[in-house]
Every structure is written in structure tokens, then in C-alpha cells.
């Protein structure tokens, strides 16, 4: 066996290396402690010399792709349902107090006033009240509709803001991709960039349901609804076009945006629930007006006028802008009866009875025709149950997300206890190495000063 004897200076060098290593380690732990509260910071560990390869020191990020994917998918669900719930709860506000007031009361009141007129066909006040209840009905329908439109517009504006955010994150990921491709994998600065990139991807997942895939060269490919939004440093951005506004891909204009997340939720609720509610509201107004007119035009006013419509609707297709109580209809022209006789309330009576007529088919419960009041009540009930369902789903997704966030924290969050322990450990290592250096130094001293000429 041939043992190679190393020189004294090698010992000095070893001790220096050990001190440097300890110092570097302490730096890493210091960084961890300093960023303990940064949710995007991934805990770093120092690589052992064997892991770091020849001549190197380096850090590794303690990261788990599997938990990351889970976190991002629950985050995407949360974004989706929460955005839907947010919009639907604004819709709920439109319906006001569900029990008192609002459009529902206007519907009930409208038919009730006809009934009252039927009982007192020649009463001028009853006639005025029918006209005024009609105007309230029209005004309530219009106001509900315009508020739905406002919510819709607001959803569109939110889409624009969200798309801007998405584009910013996409740009930042592609820039980081570019920088990382020219950096070593264990570079502490690369770890910083990766933290930033992961944070951007987290946001993208929440906003669009994006998924990431790290390629062998260290760059990240971002897929959103099947479209590669970032591939290495190539980037495809979103834009909002059209009316109603829709997010589309700038370079793939034929492929619709099919991601989830907040943007997907906004798009879904806008083209789903909101559209349906608007259609149903229009259907209700049009059907009620048509039915009332059909009866009213066969009747006769007190002044003998016939063939008058109670509501005016303008040319087809039905447009709420043209919908009103016939402005030319004087109170005495309201056709309460089939004749001008003072106690003929037959037409008013039939119009009053329309409140019981199942004249409406909604897009919500298409199988069953409904009375106007039931139709409207189902609309409100549906909005309520949709909103509470979305709230429930958002809560579930949020719980998942929180759980996954906990798992992420558990895997790579900074534990101050650990870091303090490691710091102390490295401090001791440094002291030990320094001591070795001291011993070596004494040996060299003895060798140089204690031998030879005295």
C-alpha cells in the first residue's frame, strides 16, 4: 500500500476550503431566514461537494413538481368559481330584497291592478292605477336589464385587466427563460429567478388555469387551454376583442381561449348565466306584453275607442328600448271591457287572470310552462342557487388550495428552528476549521522557525 503523503500547505488549503464552505452555507441559511416570510421563496439547501461536481459549491431548491401541479390546478378552480360567484353575487344585488319590492312585486301589482279595474271598470282612479302599474312593470324590467348589462360590461372590463396581467406574467416568464438558459443550474441567482418564475406561473394558473412543464434546458413551457403561451423564449399573448368582448390569442386568432381560472370563469358566466338571464327577462317582458295586448286590443275604452294596444313594443325583434306603456293611451281608453258599458270589466278581468296563465317557458326549466310570477321567482331562485353553488365550489377549491399551500410550505417553507440549528451547526464547523487552520499554522511556524539555523 502506497500512502501518498500530502504537504502541509494542502492542509492549510483544506482548512480554508472548509471555512469557505461553512461561510457559504451560513449565507444560504441567512438567505432562508431573511426570506422566511416570502411566500414565493423556496427553501434552499447547500449542495454537498459530491452533488455540486468538480470544484463547485451550489444550492438546490427543495421543490416538488407534483404538489405544485396540484396547487395550481386547485388555484385555477378557485379562480374560476370565485370569478363566477363574484359576478353572480352582483347579479343577486339587482334582484334586491327577494321578499319585498323589486320586479316581482311589480308583476304581482300589475295584475292585481287589472283585477281592481275589473271590479270598478268606470273608476278613473283604477284606470290611472293600471297605467301606472304598467309603467312600473316596464321600468322595473328595463332597470333589471340595464343592471344586468352593467354587470356584463364590468365582467368585460375585468377580462381586459386580467388579460393585461396574464400578458405581463407571460412576458416575465419568457424573459426568465432567456436568462436561465445561459446560467448554471446550481447558481444561487438562478434559484432566485426560478422562484420568480414559479410565482408567475402560480398567478397564471389562478388567472387562466395555465400548466407549466420544465424542459431539459431549464426553460419553462406554459400551456394555457392547449395553447403554448410560452415556449422557451417564444411568447403568444392574449388580447380582448369583439363585442361582447372575448379573450383571443394574438397569433392564433382562430383558436378560442379555452383556459379556466379567473378569465375562464368570467367568460363562462358572461356567456352563460348572464346571457340566459337577459334572454329570460326579455322573454318575460315580451310574452306578458303580447298576451296583454292580445286581450286589450279586443276591448273597448270608456270613450268607445277600440283596437288599442296597452304596451307598445316597436318592430320585431323585440327590443327593450322600444318597450313602453302605450303613451297615446288615455285613462278612459284603457279597455276594461268588451264594451264601453260602465260595469263591463270583462277584459280587465281576463288580463288580471293572466297572472295565473302558464304562458312562459324559461331557458332554466324548459320543460314546464310557468306563470309570470313563477317564472320570475324561478329566475331569482336560480340565480340564488347558482350563486350559492359557485360559492360552495369556490370554498371547496379554496380549501384544496389552502391544503396544497400547506403541503408546499411543509416541503419547502422556511422553518426558523431548522435554519437556526443549521446556522449554529455551520458556525461550529467554521470554528473547527479555523482551529485546524490554527494548528496547521503552528506546524508551519514550527517548521520554518523551529528548524534549521538557530
Amino acid at each position: 500500500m502506497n500512502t501518498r503523503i500530502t504537504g502541509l500547505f494542502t492542509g492549510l488549503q483544506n482548512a480554508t476550503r472548509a471555512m469557505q464552505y461553512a461561510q457559504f452555507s451560513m449565507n444560504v441559511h441567512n438567505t432562508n431566514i431573511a426570506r422566511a416570510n416570502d411566500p414565493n421563496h423556496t427553501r434552499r439547501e447547500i449542495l454537498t461537494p459530491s452533488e455540486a461536481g468538480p470544484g463547485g459549491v451550489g444550492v438546490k431548491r427543495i421543490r416538488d413538481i407534483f404538489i405544485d401541479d396540484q396547487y395550481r390546478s386547485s388555484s385555477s378552480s378557485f379562480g374560476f368559481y370565485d370569478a363566477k360567484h363574484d359576478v353572480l353575487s352582483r347579479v343577486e344585488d339587482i334582484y334586491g330584497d327577494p321578499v319585498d319590492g323589486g320586479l316581482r312585486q311589480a308583476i304581482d301589482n300589475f295584475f292585481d291592478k287589472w283585477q281592481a279595474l275589473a271590479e270598478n271598470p268606470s273608476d278613473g282612479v283604477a284606470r290611472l292605477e293600471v297605467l301606472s302599474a304598467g309603467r312600473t312593470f316596464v321600468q322595473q324590467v328595463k332597470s333589471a336589464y340595464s343592471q344586468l348589462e352593467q354587470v356584463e360590461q364590468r365582467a368585460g372590463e375585468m377580462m381586459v385587466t386580467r388579460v393585461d396581467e396574464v400578458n405581463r406574467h407571460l412576458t416575465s416568464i419568457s424573459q426568465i427563460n432567456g436568462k436561465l438558459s445561459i446560467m448554471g443550474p446550481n447558481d444561487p441567482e438562478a434559484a432566485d429567478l426560478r422562484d420568480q418564475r414559479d410565482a408567475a406561473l402560480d398567478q397564471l394558473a389562478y388567472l387562466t388555469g395555465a400548466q407549466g412543464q420544465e424542459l431539459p434546458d431549464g426553460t419553462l413551457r406554459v400551456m394555457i387551454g392547449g395553447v403554448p403561451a410560452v415556449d422557451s423564449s417564444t411568447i403568444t399573448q392574449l388580447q380582448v376583442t369583439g363585442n361582447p368582448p372575448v379573450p383571443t390569442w394574438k397569433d392564433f386568432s382562430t383558436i378560442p381561449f379555452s383556459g379556466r381560472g379567473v378569465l375562464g370563469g368570467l367568460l363562462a358566466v358572461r356567456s352563460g348565466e348572464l346571457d340566459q338571464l337577459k334572454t329570460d327577462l326579455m322573454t318575460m317582458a315580451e310574452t306578458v306584453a303580447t298576451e296583454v295586448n292580445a286581450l286589450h286590443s279586443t276591448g273597448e275604452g270608456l270613450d268607445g275607442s277600440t283596437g288599442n294596444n296597452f304596451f307598445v313594443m316597436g318592430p320585431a325583434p323585440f327590443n327593450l328600448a322600444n318597450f313602453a306603456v302605450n303613451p297615446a293611451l288615455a285613462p278612459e281608453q284603457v279597455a276594461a271591457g268588451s264594451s264601453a258599458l260602465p260595469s263591463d270589466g270583462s277584459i280587465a278581468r281576463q288580463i288580471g287572470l293572466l297572472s295565473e296563465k302558464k304562458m312562459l317557458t324559461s331557458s332554466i326549466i324548459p320543460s314546464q310552462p310557468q306563470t309570470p310570477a313563477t317564472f320570475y321567482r324561478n329566475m331569482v331562485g336560480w340565480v340564488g342557487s347558482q350563486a350559492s353553488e359557485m360559492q360552495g365550489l369556490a370554498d371547496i377549491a379554496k380549501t384544496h388550495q389552502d391544503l396544497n399551500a400547506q403541503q408546499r410550505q411543509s416541503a419547502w417553507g422556511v422553518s426558523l428552528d431548522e435554519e437556526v440549528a443549521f446556522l449554529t451547526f455551520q458556525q461550529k464547523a467554521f470554528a473547527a476549521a479555523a482551529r485546524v487552520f490554527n494548528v496547521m499554522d503552528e506546524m508551519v511556524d514550527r517548521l520554518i522557525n523551529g528548524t534549521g539555523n538557530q
Partner: protein
Amino acid sequence: MRVTHSMLMSSSLRDLDLLRQKYQKAQNAVNGRVLERPSDDPQRVVEAMDLSGAKLRYERTQRTGQDSREWLGMAETHTDAMLEQIQAARDIAVQAGGPGALSPDARQGLVRGLEEVRDALMREMNGQYRGQYLFSGWATDTKPFADNATGGVDYSGTNDQILRDIAPSLAVPINLTGQELMAGGDFMKTLTDMINELNSGDATSVTTTRLEELDKAFDNINRLRSDLGVRYAQIEKYEAYAEKAILNIEERLGKITGGNVEVAMIQMTEARTTYEAALVSFSRALPTSLLDYMLR
């Protein structure tokens, strides 16, 4: 599982938030705000909407019922009076056949009696309620009956029923038309004929034909009158039903929208206690770490 400080913090904060939400909900319930928006409880919101719609309909039933009963009551009063007058005419007809009616003076007395009866009947038949003629169908502004050249009356009202919807698919007519009143024959012409016959000293037909005619008219109006009574009772029944229904609805509505204050109070106190306990544990557990013992 590795637990870090930020995990402790975020999970505690989340729990505190949940507790605050619970507290807020309980507090809303105490303040009587259980159903603020449809999503609070869609089922109950829908029920509440149905109930308040039903309440409005029952209130209409009550108003309609009251008004209808007034109409029917007036019609009843007037038909009662008519029956009395026809009965009086009948009595006179019977007297005309008796020995006391032989003298011209006595006959004159009977004729005067009949004339009074005829005038009274005319008044009743043209009876009004709140300025509207009771027996002229839909033409309630037209005086229904006027004398004609033959000694009878002409009817200038319409033959329409005034219908009132008391309950779903129960429409009750609240008027009698002139046509219906006259269905037993033109008794006014009978009276004129009787007067003429007595004036000319012919009592035979008065006691036979005219008496029969009066009986027919009496039967007809009597039948109509009892019909009015039936309708009146029917409406009264539904009114009572509506009143009870309104009470029930109000009670149910109160339960749905207001909730139970005692239960809500207890829930709020519970929520408050848990919240306070969580705050204490949070404030004690969080600030400690190894840093407090090492590297000092």
C-alpha cells in the same frame, strides 16, 4: 409532516377568518337578517316569494269579497222589497175577489193600493248602489226600467253578469239583470192590467189570471233572491278562508325571513366564545421559535 412558522400563521389566520364569518352570520340572524340575498337560502327565498305573492292574492280576495258582498247585499235588500210589494199586490188581488170590494169606494182604495205598489216596485227595480244601477247588467249608468205604452216596462240594460273572481277558477256573478227579474213575466204590466180591470169593475180576471201571473213573478224573484243568498254565503266562506290563510302566511313568512331569535342568540354567543379562545391560543403560540433560546 414538517411544520413551519408561516404554516402555523396562515392556518391560524384562516381558522380565525372562518370563525369571524360564523360570528357575522350569527349576528345577522340576531338582527333578523336571515335572507338578505337569494343565495342565502334559495329554497326559502323562493318559498318566501311564493308566500308574499299568495298573500297579495288573498288580500285581493278579501277586498273583492267585501265589495261583492255589498253588491249582493244591496241586490238582496231590493229583491226582498220587491217580494214584499208583490205580496201586497197579491193580497189586494185576493181582496178584490171578496165581498168588501163591491163598492166603488172600496175598489178605488184597492186601485190606490195597487198604484202605490207599482210605484214602489219601480223604485226598487231601478235601485242604485253607489250611483250605479243594480239591475241593468253592465250598463250600470243606464236606468234599467221605464214605463212603456202597453202599461208594462221596457228594459234598457244589458243581459251581462258582473263576475268577481273570489278564488282561483271561482267567479261569482254579483248582479241580477233586468232580464232575470222579468223572467217570470212582466209583473208591472200585470199591475197596470189589474188597475184597469178594477177601474172598469171587472174583478174576475184579477182574482184568477192576474193572481197566477203575480205568483209566477213572485216565485221567480224568490228563486233569484235565494240564489243571491247562496252566492253571499259562498263569498263569506272564502273571505274567512282568505283571512285564515293570510294569518298562516304571515306567520310562515315571519319564520322564514326573521328566524328564531333565541337560537340565533345562543349561536352568536357560541361563535363569540370560540373566536375569543382562538385569539388567545393564536397570540400565545405564534411568536416562539428556537431564536428565543439560541444565538443570543
